[in-house]
């Protein structure tokens, strides 16, 4: 493991670069962005501007803008300038490249699951917890499940904005008709509490809707299969440890059990067999299906189609409560030039955004900052309040440099799973193939 970004070794590096910079400065001055004012590549950012990179577009993007507006009064004189980049692998590639160049944005959004691939590489700067506390953001304001993943070598590298679990959405009418709702209108999770019951509920939903039961869009998707699989696998009590160099410690029998269940779920009769991500959404919004397995971030889409759409934390199918989730967090891309003013501005801006994150709940996400979710106003938010409990049992991707949202790893796992769901690959063989791929990731040297 290398030293922290501010550790030893850094001064020598910087001074060598300074020397080279100085020797080239005269020739390069005309060409570097800094001299063309207004083009934004100046070394120190503009007075009062915090440049943020994020990956929120669609409904999320609009709500983020609203949240920024709501946060404005808590950060007087600071302008938050957003750049929305394409979500997925390219986002993280670009973020790492910008940080390596030392001219990244002041602030960036990053999935907490990706932190293991960032913090040890020296591509991020740690947060100043005292500074954050001064603006009213403390450790006890966050749930342990997420907070535990924001640290590296006892320093804070990510400030969580939300938790976004993988949950279930349903249309209340067919769900009620199928007898799957409790008296207060919430989903009766008992009816989903074993693989057999879950599948039976799907059949009931299909009957009640007159069409099909449960939609799951996964074909050619780089993460959907993995999201469903890993949450369920952890429900079996199975564990996954990824020691450096391998081999992976994982329970193949339990994997196969989960894969078999997933393959039965997309049977092509009660539930659609081969939906890609967008046709999965469409089949639910068009009411071709009565329920869908989906991330909470699609709430706005679903609600646009059905105002009364219901939601619930992912049912415990295999005994142990566990809900697959991830968390959007704020990180500080590495900047070799320390700047007190910028540091203060970013800390204050993040605190202001967290306090305004009730707006963010409308996007479907569970705000990570608990003072927001503890309010009455939040308890009144439907259906968000119905899956607030999910955050107590969240399971994030295993902590490894190659894992996390938008990673090759998720894509590789999803590809194998898709073969089991779509092309009839036997569950035990699929499990073995996944382990093989896991070990090949582990055999690669960590970049840190």
């Amino acid at each position: 493991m290398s030293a922290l970004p501010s550790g030893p070794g850094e001064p020598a590096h910087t001074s060598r670069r300074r020397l080279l910079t100085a020797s080239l400065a005269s020739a390069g001055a005309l060409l570097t962005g800094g001299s063309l004012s207004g083009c934004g590549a100046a070394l120190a950012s503009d007075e009062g501007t915090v440049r943020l990179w994020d990956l929120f577009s669609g409904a999320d993007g609009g709500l983020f803008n609203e949240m920024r507006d709501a946060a404005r009064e808590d950060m007087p004189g600071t302008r938050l300038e957003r750049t929305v980049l394409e979500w997925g692998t390219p986002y993280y590639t670009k973020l790492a490249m910008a940080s390596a160049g030392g001219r990244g944005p002041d602030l960036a959004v990053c999935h907490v699951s990706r932190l293991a691939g960032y913090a040890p590489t020296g591509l991020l700067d740690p947060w100043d917890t005292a500074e954050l506390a001064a603006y009213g953001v403390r450790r006890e304001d966050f749930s342990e499940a997420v907070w535990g993943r924001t640290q590296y070598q006892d320093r804070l590298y990510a400030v969580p904005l939300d938790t976004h679990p993988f949950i279930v959405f349903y249309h209340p009418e067919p769900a009620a008709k199928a007898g799957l709702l409790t008296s207060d209108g919430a989903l009766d999770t008992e009816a989903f509490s074993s693989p057999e019951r879950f599948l039976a509920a799907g059949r009931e939903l299909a009957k009640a809707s007159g069409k099909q039961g449960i939609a799951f869009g996964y074909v050619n998707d780089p993460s959907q299969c993995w999201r469903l699989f890993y949450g369920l696998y952890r429900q079996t009590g199975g564990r996954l440890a990824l020691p450096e160099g391998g081999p992976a410690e994982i329970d193949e029998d339990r994997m196969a059990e989960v894969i078999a269940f997933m393959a039965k779920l997309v049977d092509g009769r009660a539930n659609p067999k081969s939906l890609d991500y967008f046709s999965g959404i469409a089949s639910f919004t068009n009411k071709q299906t009565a329920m869908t397995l989906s991330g909470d971030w699609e709430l706005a889409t679903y609600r646009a189609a059905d105002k009364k759409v219901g939601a619930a934390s992912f049912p415990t199918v295999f005994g142990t409560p566990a809900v697959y989730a991830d968390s959007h967090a704020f990180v500080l891309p590495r900047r070799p030039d320390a700047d007190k003013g910028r540091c203060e501005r970013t800390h204050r801006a993040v605190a202001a955004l967290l306090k305004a994150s009730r707006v963010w709940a409308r996007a479907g996400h569970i705000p990570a900052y608990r003072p927001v979710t503890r309010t009455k106003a939040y308890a009144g938010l439907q259906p968000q309040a119905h899956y607030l409990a999910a955050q107590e049992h969240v399971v994030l991707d295993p902590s490894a440099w190659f894992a996390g949202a938008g990673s090759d790893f998720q894509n590789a796992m999803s590809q194998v799973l898709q073969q089991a769901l779509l092309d009839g690959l036997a569950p035990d063989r699929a499990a073995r193939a996944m382990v093989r791929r896991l070990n090949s990731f582990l055999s690669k040297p960590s970049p840190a």
Partner: protein
Amino acid sequence: MSSPPASARTGSRPARRTLPPGLLFALPFLVLFGLFMVWPMAQGLWMSLTDASLSAHDPSFIGLDNFREALGDEEMWRSLGHTLLFTLFSTVPLVAVALGMALLVHTGLPGQWVWRLAFFAPYLLPVGVVSLLWLWLYQPDLGLYNHLLGAVGLDGVAWLSDESVAMWAIVLATLWWTVGFNFLLYLAALQAIPDHLYEAAAIDGAGAWRRLWSITLPQLSRMTGVITVLQILASLKVFDQVYLLTKGGPNNSTRPVIEYLYDVGFTGYRLGYASAISYLFFALVLLASAAQFAVLRRREKQS
């Protein structure tokens, strides 16, 4: 031509006497060449022998490990295969269609200006524009091509998400985008065919078809060789449109080797390993160049 010391004397400033003027003229280029060609090539070679990464840690020397790993890396070979497949699939139509277009335009039919604009304009578009446009044309539910297929009663095609179609879809977009370049080269070659050849053939009473086969195509054969060489070398370097249209997907089934080295180096942080793959790719390009050089040489001797 004067000898170096003599030409130095013709230079005006005595202070520069130590540097011959020729070198001074070449110097700006040589500086840039050294800085941005020789140095990075050397650095790339060095990095390929280390575990250099995007992160801040210091690289350590690991000998030929990267090359050893690359040679046994299934994904590397797979992506190399995609590059070769793309080269094969794209070169044939890019040469043949360009030739067809040039022959048709060269018939002297009215509207020369329009034809040239239609065929060459796409080449002037930045690849970003090309990819946005074709993503939209290929959009499964709303794109033009599936609408057109629907209009004649056919099922829509999952152009970019079906593994058996995606590579062809990329080839098609590439053909549309870059064929204009080869088209112009052919047109220029057609216009350089001496008139007297046709005149002589006309006197012999050769019909249009005969003239095409016995004069035009043989006269174009050298140009065809050159265009094919240039096209193969260009196609081997494919990255832009694949990256922008499919990101190498679905399931990495279209990922070319350049994208693989980008993915390995920047997404996977492994700059050292990516450098090793760069050099393997370079070896391939050199091999292709050498083979083509040999073929062209032999053909020239024959003619």
